[in-house]
C-alpha cells in the first residue's frame, strides 16, 4: 500500500513496527521510514514526532499492526501471550492514533486500519486463535468508540478486512490496491465503514 500511494504522487512515511532489535531493518523501496515499538508509549510518541517533522500534516493514517499466535484451551492456553496479543493488536493502534492526532487536525482526518477476517463474531472461525481473535474484537470496539468520539470533529474511519494470513503467504497486489481505494477515498464522508476485501 505504501508503494501504491507513493506511486500516485503522495508523500508516504512508512512506520515500521517491531520490538527492540528491529530498529535498523532497512527498506529496499526508497520509502521514507521510521521505526517504532507499538508497545511503548515513548517510542510511539517519538514516531509521531518524526512524522510531524517529516510530513508537516498527515491526511491519512493507516494502522496495519498485526501479530498473531495460535493457542487454544486444552492445548496450553497462556494468559501472558494472550495479554501480549491485546497489547500489540488492540492497544498498539490506540497508542499510535492518540500520538498522531495532533498532526492530523489540519489534514483530511482519515484514519484507516487493516484487520483480519477473524474479527467476525458471526462467522465460525475455530478456537485456535482465541487470544488473537479477542484482541481483534477489542480493537473493533475501540474503532467504534473513536468514530463516536471524533466523528463530530470531521474524522472518518475505514477498516479494510482481509484474510491477512493468506495475504502473508501469497500477497496479492490487486487486493492491496483495493484496500488503498477503500482506505483513501477521502470524498466518502461516512464516519465509519468496515469493508470486507475479497
Amino acid at each position: 500500500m505504501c508503494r501504491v500511494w507513493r506511486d500516485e504522487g503522495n508523500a508516504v512515511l512508512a512506520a515500521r513496527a517491531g520490538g527492540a532489535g528491529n530498529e535498523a531493518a532497512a527498506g529496499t523501496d526508497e520509502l521514507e521510514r521510521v521505526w517504532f515499538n507499538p508497545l511503548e508509549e515513548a517510542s510511539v510518541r517519538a514516531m509521531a514526532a518524526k512524522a510531524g517533522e517529516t510530513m508537516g500534516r498527515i491526511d491519512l493514517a493507516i494502522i496495519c499492526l498485526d501479530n498473531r499466535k495460535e493457542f487454544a484451551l486444552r492445548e496450553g492456553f497462556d494468559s501472558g501471550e494472550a495479554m501480549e496479543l491485546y497489547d500489540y493488536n488492540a492497544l498498539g493502534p490506540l497508542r499510535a492514533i492518540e500520538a498522531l492526532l495532533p498532526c492530523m487536525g489540519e489534514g483530511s482526518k482519515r484514519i484507516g486500519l487493516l484487520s483480519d477476517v477473524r474479527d467476525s463474531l458471526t462467522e465460525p472461525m475455530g478456537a485456535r486463535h482465541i487470544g488473537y481473535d479477542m484482541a481483534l474484537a477489542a480493537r473493533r470496539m475501540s474503532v467504534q468508540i473513536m468514530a463516536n468520539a471524533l466523528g463530530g470533529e470531521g474524522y472518518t474511519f475505514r477498516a479494510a478486512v482481509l484474510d491477512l494470513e493468506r495475504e502473508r503467504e501469497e500477497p496479492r497486489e490487486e487486493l492491496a490496491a483495493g484496500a488503498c481505494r477503500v482506505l483513501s477515498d477521502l470524498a466518502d464522508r461516512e464516519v465509519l465503514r468496515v469493508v470486507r476485501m475479497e
Partner: protein
Amino acid sequence: MHTALVTGADRGLGFALTSRLLSDGWRVIAGRYLEDWPELPELAERHRERLVIVPLDIGSDESVHIAAKLASAQTNSVDLVIHNAAVSTPLKDLDLRGGLDYGDMKRIYNINALGMLRVTEAFLGLTDAGSMKRQCVVSSEAGSVERCERRAWYGYCMSKAALNMGTMRLYEQLRPEGYTFRLFHPGWMKTYMSGVKSEEGELEADEVAEAAARYFVEPGEADDRLVMRDWSGKEWPW
C-alpha cells in the same frame, strides 16, 4: 445434587446468584475475592453442607489453579460455571484527547476478558465430569459493538467485546463436546464494580439474579445458538 462454581461471589450479582442457587438446592463453590467482606461467611453459616468458599482472584493464574485444586478436593464434578467476576475503573472517562491509561486498560482486560478463559481452563477437569457442562458468562451491553454509542470507556468496552469473542470461540470448541453456553447482560445494576455500591443503577442484584438463574439453569434455544440476552430476555447484537 448439582454443583455450581460462581466467581466474584462476595457481593452484588455473584452473591445473589449464590444465594439463589443454594435456595434451589444446589451445592455452590463460591469464588471469594474480598477477604474481609462478611456476607459469604454469613451465608456459609446457614448452608454448611452445600457452600464451599474458595479464595479466587480470576486475574491471577496461580490463584485460579489453587482454587481449582481446592474445589477438586471437595467435589468430583462441576455442572455449571457462572463467570461473574469483573471490574470497572474510575478512569473510564479518559479519552484520546486527555490521554488513555494503558496500564489500567490492561488490568481491566486481564480480569474481564482473560479471567473467564483462566477459570474455564483450570476447571475443565471438573466440568468435563459434570452432567450439565454449562458455561454462563456475565457480559454487558458495553461489549456490543453494534449498539455502542459511547465516546470513552475504552478499556471496559474493549474488555467486554473481547469477552464476547472469547465466549464465541469457546462455544465453537466446546459445544461439540456437549458444553452449552449462556451469555448475559445484567442490565444497569446497582453494582459494587467501582469498589462501593452504586445507587445509580435501575436494578437490584436480587431481581437480576432471579432472571439470570432461570436463564442459566434451564434448557433453551441458547443451547444451540450463542446469543447475548439481558435480564428481560431481550437479545443483544454483537
